């Protein structure tokens, strides 16, 4: 608290990012949040901004109405305050500068956050995800793969977890030898096992091959991986970097596998750009979409120039390649990049999600993140700028993964148990530092920090609000008909994720939400089913026998008829049923999932929509326009749960 000089400023103006609207309110600064409370309004909006979410604070030059303060958040919120007195502004500014740069882990919100749970509940929360059980689910250990204790003390690789799975033929000397030949000691280990074909997805970092170095143990290691799979004679080695980057690494004594030295490998570059390119790309994207009165041309050109969707597609293409190699060819695949914790995590996680329907459920998705991202040492602290920032280390690698999943939910609306709000909420908390899961860079560091004893798990929290994140049209039977997802990679299917990057820019969202509506119907269906049961019980007391309730699954044809042709105009021989098929075109697509379900802060109905907030044109001040009703920000659950 010693950093807060001015805890409260009144008469602060909050400017809307895209229109000329503004509201007046009071700004509060607490140890954890910056809070804006709108005054003089019946439905006063509150904005809670966690200090950890703040990426940058900027004090702009003084204007007649006061001192502007621009705050940019990692969850893509951008707020623009105007504070009447410069001194207040400066106090808030300098306090924030200090508060948003915590110097030690102890200062992070997770260590002070208390959701009023006892120790047992906290412990249960941490036990929700059990990776040993997950490998068991995949069918590991088995006759070809075993658990090794070589990294029990983090001696071989300190950024890997303690428990690692390797081929049974990979002896300890081979493992240790191989780890010495790999960047940061990250030797090839199992991350996903495709039981049906006994094919494995393994991950590692780049070999220290330089121009000519080789390592027999490493070659043995790959041989062992190859031998563990009888279905295929070769192993794919996917280097997820562009070839040029890999070549450049050779000069530094690193590089990629030489096909001549490794028997039976098929080497492949994939061409996903590095963290610096990704960081720059997102920055460009945000600049473009943050422009006021953006024209369609500038938007599309900017979207293209940012390269963002191209990168998303590159990751998706790589994951599809991986999934095809494993499921179609039955080949094992070894994935690496440079250090094997960014692109490798993206490709392994997304590839597994394409292959295994379990990862498309709420629980399974948590397991996937826990496995491929948290346990294998994606450097969340560095990439998400949690502490002691090195701007060169920050990069939206995990955000890209979430976006890839979102792109898939758009193509397969029934495949995922969760809606996009689940993804957005996870993104929110990767940066919030409110829960322990994503703190630190590796499992070892997390143990040192005693996170399980001192903080709470996000997964327990998300599961407790599960109903908010459900996808109402999710169909578990979809997994049976589509165990492996085969998304289209046509460029036109990659779309801008408005609800992520404009989450807080309410004026851009649809004013009514199909997702919310359908969720409400589903909830209502559940209640009505209960009511029907209760009424029947009562009726039975009167001696009336009632027929059992019809099951919800309709006797409807599950598989639709083949794609209908349209405009068979006037075909006299057509039966009516066929004509019916003609026009059955999609309306679901992206509309399906537009809005936060059951957002607590006011209904986002049509009443909220207004002409002026959209800024159609040059009417301002002409005949004196009327005031618009207060606008409620879209803050799905954030304010509620952080207080």
């Amino acid at each position: 608290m010693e950093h807060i000089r001015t805890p409260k400023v009144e008469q602060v103006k909050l400017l809307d990012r895209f229109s000329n609207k503004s509201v007046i309110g009071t700004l509060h600064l607490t140890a954890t949040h910056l809070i804006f409370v709108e005054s003089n309004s019946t439905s006063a909006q509150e904005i809670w901004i966690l200090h950890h979410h703040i990426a940058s604070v900027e004090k702009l030059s003084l204007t007649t109405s006061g001192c502007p303060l621009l705050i940019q958040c990692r969850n893509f919120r951008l707020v623009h305050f105007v504070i009447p007195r410069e001194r207040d502004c400066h106090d808030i500014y300098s306090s924030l500068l200090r508060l948003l740069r915590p110097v030690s882990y102890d200062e992070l919100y997770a260590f002070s956050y208390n959701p009023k749970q006892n120790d047992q509940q906290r412990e249960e929360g941490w036990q929700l995800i059990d990776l040993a059980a997950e490998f068991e689910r995949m069918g590991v250990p088995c006759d070809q793969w075993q658990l090794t204790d070589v990294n029990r003390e983090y001696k071989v690789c300190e950024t890997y977890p303690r428990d690692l799975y390797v081929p049974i033929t990979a002896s300890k000397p081979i493992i240790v030898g191989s780890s010495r030949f790999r960047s940061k000691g990250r030797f090839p280990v199992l991350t996903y096992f495709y039981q049906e074909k006994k094919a494995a997805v393994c991950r590692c970092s780049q070999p220290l091959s330089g121009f000519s170095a080789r390592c027999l143990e490493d070659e043995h290691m790959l041989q062992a991986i190859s031998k563990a799979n009888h279905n295929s004679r070769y192993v794919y080695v996917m280097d997820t970097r562009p070839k040029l980057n890999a070549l450049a690494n050779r000069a530094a004594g690193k590089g990629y596998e030489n096909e001549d030295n490794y028997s039976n490998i098929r080497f492949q570059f994939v061409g996903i750009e590095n963290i610096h390119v990704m960081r720059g790309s997102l920055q460009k994207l945000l600049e473009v979409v943050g422009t006021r009165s953006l024209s369609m041309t500038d938007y599309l050109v900017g979207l293209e120039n940012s390269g963002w969707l191209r990168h998303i597609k590159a990751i998706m293409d790589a994951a599809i390649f991986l999934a095809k190699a494993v499921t179609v060819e039955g080949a094992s695949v070894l994935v690496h990049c440079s250090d094997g914790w960014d692109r490798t995590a993206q490709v392994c996680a997304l590839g597994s999600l394409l292959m295994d329907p379990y990862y498309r459920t709420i629980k399974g998705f948590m397991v996937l993140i826990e496995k491929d991202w948290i346990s294998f040492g994606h450097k969340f602290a560095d990439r998400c700028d949690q502490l002691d920032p090195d701007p060169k280390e920050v990069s939206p690698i995990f955000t890209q993964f979430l976006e890839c999943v979102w792109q898939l939910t758009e193509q397969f609306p029934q495949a995922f148990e969760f809606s996009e709000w689940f993804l957005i909420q996870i993104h929110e908390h990767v940066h919030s530092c409110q829960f322990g899961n994503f703190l630190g860079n590796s499992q070892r560091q997390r143990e040192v920090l005693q996170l399980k004893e001192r903080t709470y798990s996000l997964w327990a929290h998300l599961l407790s609000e599960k109903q908010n994140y459900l996808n109402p049209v999710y169909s578990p039977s979809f997994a049976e008909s589509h165990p492996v997802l085969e998304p289209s990679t046509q460029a036109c299917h990659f779309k801008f994720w408005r609800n992520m990057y404009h989450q807080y820019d309410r004026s851009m969202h649809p004013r009514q939400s199909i997702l919310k509506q359908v969720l409400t119907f589903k909830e209502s269906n559940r209640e009505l089913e209960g009511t029907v049961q209760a009424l029947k019980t009562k009726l039975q007391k009167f001696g009336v026998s009632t027929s059992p309730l019809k099951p919800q699954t309709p006797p409807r044809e599950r598989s639709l008829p083949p794609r209908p042709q349209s405009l068979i105009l006037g075909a006299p021989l057509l039966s009516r049923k066929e004509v019916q098929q003609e026009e059955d075109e999609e309306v679901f697509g992206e509309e399906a999932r537009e809005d936060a379900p059951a957002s607590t802060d006011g209904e986002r109905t049509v009443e909220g929509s207004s002409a002026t907030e959209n800024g159609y044109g040059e009417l301002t001040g002409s005949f004196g326009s009327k005031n618009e009703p207060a606008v409620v920000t879209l803050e799905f659950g954030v304010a509620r749960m952080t207080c």
Partner: protein
Amino acid sequence: MEFAELIKTPRVDGVVLHRPFMPTVEGTLCLTGHHLILSSRQDNTEELWLLHANIDSTEKRFVGSLGTIIVKCKDLRVIQLDIPGMEECLNIASSIEALSTLDSVSLMYPFFYRPLFEVIEDGWQSFAPEESFRDLESMTDEWRLSEVNKDFSVCPSYPSLLTVPKDIDDESLCKAASFRHGGRFPVLSYYHKKNGMVMMRAAQPLTGTNGRRCKEDEKLINATLCAGKRGYIIDTRTIAVAQQAKARGGGFEQEANYPQWRRIHKAIERSNVLQDSLIKLVEACNDQSHSMDRWLSKLEASNWQSNVKEILTTACLAAQCIDREGASVLVHGTEGTDSTLQVTSLAQIILDPACRTIRGFEALIEREWLQAGHPFHQRCAQSAYSNGKPRSEAPVFLLFLDCVWQILRQFPCSFQFNENLLIMLFEHAYTSQFGTFLGNCVAERGKLQLSQKTVSLWSWVNRPQELERFLNPLYEPNNLVIWPSVAPQSLLLWEGVFLRWNRSTKCLDEAYQEMVHIIEYNKELQNKVNSLRRQLAQLETEDKMVADLK
């Protein structure tokens, strides 16, 4: 003329049909006067019935004696027919070519089509101007129905009955008409019940280079203003374009002569530019290369989304003037038959909840497009694949439908109809078995005797069996003005039309079905609960009566 003369080879066996995302079909190809039919000998296999009029262009290729015809349709579909035999293939190709480019309207399929359904309500009679005037009369007595254009001599593209200010006599109307392009003098388009403001539409005034004026025109539009009120003239052209129009005898309203009006210029593209935009867009959508950058630049270069944004913005502006500023509005561009109608009809969808019902939307299209004289026959003669030099083709109506779709997406619960209705209208505007979209204006339709010789699209759509698939299960009527967002991030590509044939929609269709099912199940449960409650209440009263008797 006999169609038979044009059909050299009426039938070929062993033809293979390729369509994207569908299994190939082998069968017999037949040509009739209006259809291309492909029928396989197996049962349960789909047949292809394609109207020749739906064919936009064809290409032929030969590999040995196997010929291939690629048929590109006005609904943007592309199919491929493999025809064994060079001569057969050439004959078929030339027949298709001839049959799909017949010039005479009276040879079109609607004149030959006989419905297999019973016409319960004749769509030709469904939306009489008198009827909408009766609605207007119940709200205000400021307007009258004029028969000045009874014989279409004052304005050939207007209908015979027009709603005009009560205080303006027919003689003044004639004078005002002579001052407006094509005789399209200002008429009522929409009356906003909430505040009594109106939207009118017209064509450009013929001020010319020397600033001609017309007292009757000024009086006519001033008559629509309340005392002391001002109004807005929304010119759909940029000021530069409007200036240029002066040289050709057109122009815009001078402030000095219309002091009570404020002019706003917007930039909706002219029709030939729009046609080019459509062609480029469809080309981008059909590009099978999977490069991200190419897609985005091609999408951008087509300018289609910019056109959508501009039209929608102008419509929102008109609606804003009326609803928020409490001012009346006059909309015009050059001819008043294209961008003007886009703006007036979209503004009504934003302002008037009635236009968001199926019936109301049909009435809107009838009123603001068909009777208002949008030249459908010219605009929809060719679509995106046409090889020929475009004459007056332009996707003006398709852009309007796209804009409606954008609003529908943003307010998915405010429309009684769903996307299917919009796609259906797009298809029928370009080619149809119904007569509704034939001709360019009311006068032409009268001459063609469409209402006697053809079936109206509305006769078919409004049958309960057909209506079902156009209903939006999420519809909850609301009486509010709906303001869409026009930010580029909020406007999407209309995949239902432009990517329709380039993707598999199975997953999306199934998800939609699931949503429909959830909503239907809800209704079912509610009925069940109600009937159980009634039953219970009845039993309880009976029980009580028995107890009382005891």
